[in-house]
């Protein structure tokens, strides 16, 4: 669906996107994550032929972009950063204009009214009145933007932060809409920095940090057990002594043990008469994962010391020290 190789974009001095190799397959719900200013929007714009790459190649739906972008765009629905509309027109009039612009659609002019009505219905604006978009609420604008993206039943949806400004209810509605569309065969490429949103929706993720793709894998694989055991015990001190070198991290009553066999660790502790309040395989949350492979956002200026203090991600480590050891293996799993 989307394949980029060595995709690079330089804005003057700023290297916004650096050697990104994206792989999005048909039917994926792909979550494109990264801190502010990491280059997500720039990648999305390049996929749509709005920004021209300075290096590398893009193929969308098997067609080279930006060379033949007009051949694929009719099959792509896009939401790029904020939704936009002509403020003095109604939402319906806006969609009519958008539909009339561009190549002749399959249903022709006569189908326009129906297509617009359908798109509005899908995003929950079916009963909207004729007020000008200028008077819409933020959430209504976001829905209208989504409706515009859905107008021509695209095969690929490219959405840059689609749930910005929606309330929790709206986010859930949009999520189920996207899942439904995906089940019907639409591939979804969604950029976001809302980890929970991605965690609940996506099947595959790619993480960019300062323009570089630092991680790309199936979410299920990434969130599998880490091969370590998480133990909580009032006798943590003694337990640490017992387990010796296998303990990679300890704070208060929590231990992390480098051992894949939970049952075995449990038996060993209980045999030694130690009380165990909690034990289980360590699973990383998406948040841990993403924070471990990304640095502080590249839009943070004025604290140069923080960046030179160590490896990327050093800030996140201070907040939660047990990620130190996982840094290396998480980095390794990105091809």
């Amino acid at each position, binding site marked *: 669906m989307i394949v980029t190789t060595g995709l690079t974009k330089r804005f003057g001095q700023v290297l916004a996107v650096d050697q990104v190799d994206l792989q999005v397959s048909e039917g994926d719900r792909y979550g494109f994550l990264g801190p502010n200013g990491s280059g997500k929007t720039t990648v999305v714009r390049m996929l749509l032929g709005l920004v021209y790459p300075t290096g590398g190649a893009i193929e969308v739906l098997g067609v080279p972009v930006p060379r033949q972008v007009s051949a694929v765009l009719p099959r792509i629905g896009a939401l790029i950063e904020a939704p936009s509309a002509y403020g003095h027109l109604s939402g319906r009039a806006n969609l009519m204009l958008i539909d009339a612009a561009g*190549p002749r659609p399959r249903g022709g002019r006569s189908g326009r009214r129906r297509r617009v009505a359908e798109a509005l219905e899908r995003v929950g604006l079916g009963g909207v009145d004729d007020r000008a978009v200028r008077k819409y609420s933020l959430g209504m604008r976001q829905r209208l933007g989504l409706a515009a993206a859905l107008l021509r039943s695209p095969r690929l949806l490219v959405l840059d932060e689609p749930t910005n400004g929606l309330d929790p209810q709206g986010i859930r509605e949009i999520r189920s809409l996207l899942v439904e569309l995906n089940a019907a065969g639409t591939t979804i490429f969604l950029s976001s920095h809302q980890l929970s949103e991605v965690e609940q929706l996506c099947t595959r993720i790619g993480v960019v940090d300062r323009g570089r793709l630092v991680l790309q894998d199936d979410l299920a694989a990434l969130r599998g057990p880490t091969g370590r055991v998480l133990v909580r015990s009032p006798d943590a001190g003694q337990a640490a002594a017992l387990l010796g070198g296998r303990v990679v991290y300890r704070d208060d009553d929590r231990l992390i043990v480098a051992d894949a066999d939970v049952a075995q660790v449990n038996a060993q502790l209980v045999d030694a008469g130690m009380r165990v309040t909690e034990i289980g395989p360590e699973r990383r949350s998406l948040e841990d994962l993403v924070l471990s492979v990304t640095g502080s956002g590249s839009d943070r200026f004025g604290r140069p010391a923080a960046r030179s203090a160590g490896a990327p991600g050093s800030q996140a480590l201070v907040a939660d020290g047990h990620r130190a050891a996982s840094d290396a293996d998480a980095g390794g799993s990105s091809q």
Partner: protein
Amino acid sequence: MIRVELLKLARRPRSWVAIALLCLLPIVVAIFVAVTHVAPPPGQGPALLSAVLSSGSLFPAAALAIVLPVFLPISVAVVAGDAIAGEASSGMLRYLLARPVGRTRLLVAKLVALIAYVLVAVVAVAVTSYVTGILLFGDKPPAALSSGSLSTSGVIANSLSGTGMTPADVLLRTAGAVAFIAVSMLGVGAIALFLSTLTDSALGAALGALAALIASGVLVALNSAASISPYLPTRYWLSWIDFFRQPILWRDIDRGFAIQAVYVVVFLGAAWANFASKDVTS
């Protein structure tokens, strides 16, 4: 896409307000002149205005002379400056291009809409002022201007000693003047359209084009800049007055058409080259 652009322009209240104001100004002038019967002496004030007192059918020409120096270029520059920059600042540019509307197609559609706007504006002024002129000054056949008394700066000293013009004659000459002015305004539009592809600020593009016109006007009036003045966009702006001379003086009219054509081609080419190759990050 052309249809969409025309529709968008027509649905904007601003377009109609600007045209209404353009039509209103000559009417106000006509009322004052009709009431007081004091026209500017020949050679001063808006060209042709003094000839109007003798015949209302010349008033469209006078009306065009009234709006030409300032109001018409402003409204054209605003519309043209808004073309791409306005879409960029409203955030619609990226959605239009992703629809997809090819960049060249979008530019062509904007250009067609601009031409339509210029024609509607100029013709609207001509028609409303014709009606006003006939109502207030009557429709005696007017005399043509004698060709002896021109001055190159475009401000003419007219004389009513020329041969009379038939109504059909006046109509034809007015049509010629309308075409000439429309082409001149297209020159302004081309400059503004080019600037509109450079910036995301519609206001900046419009003001930039107006600044270019004002600079050109200053240089045209400056004797020491005479060597470049034939190439300045405003140099032949008022040459359409030559359509009302007997016989018609084609020299400056032809040059005016030619220089505007050059400006239109050069700036539209630059607009296209820039727009087709630029990153759309708005």
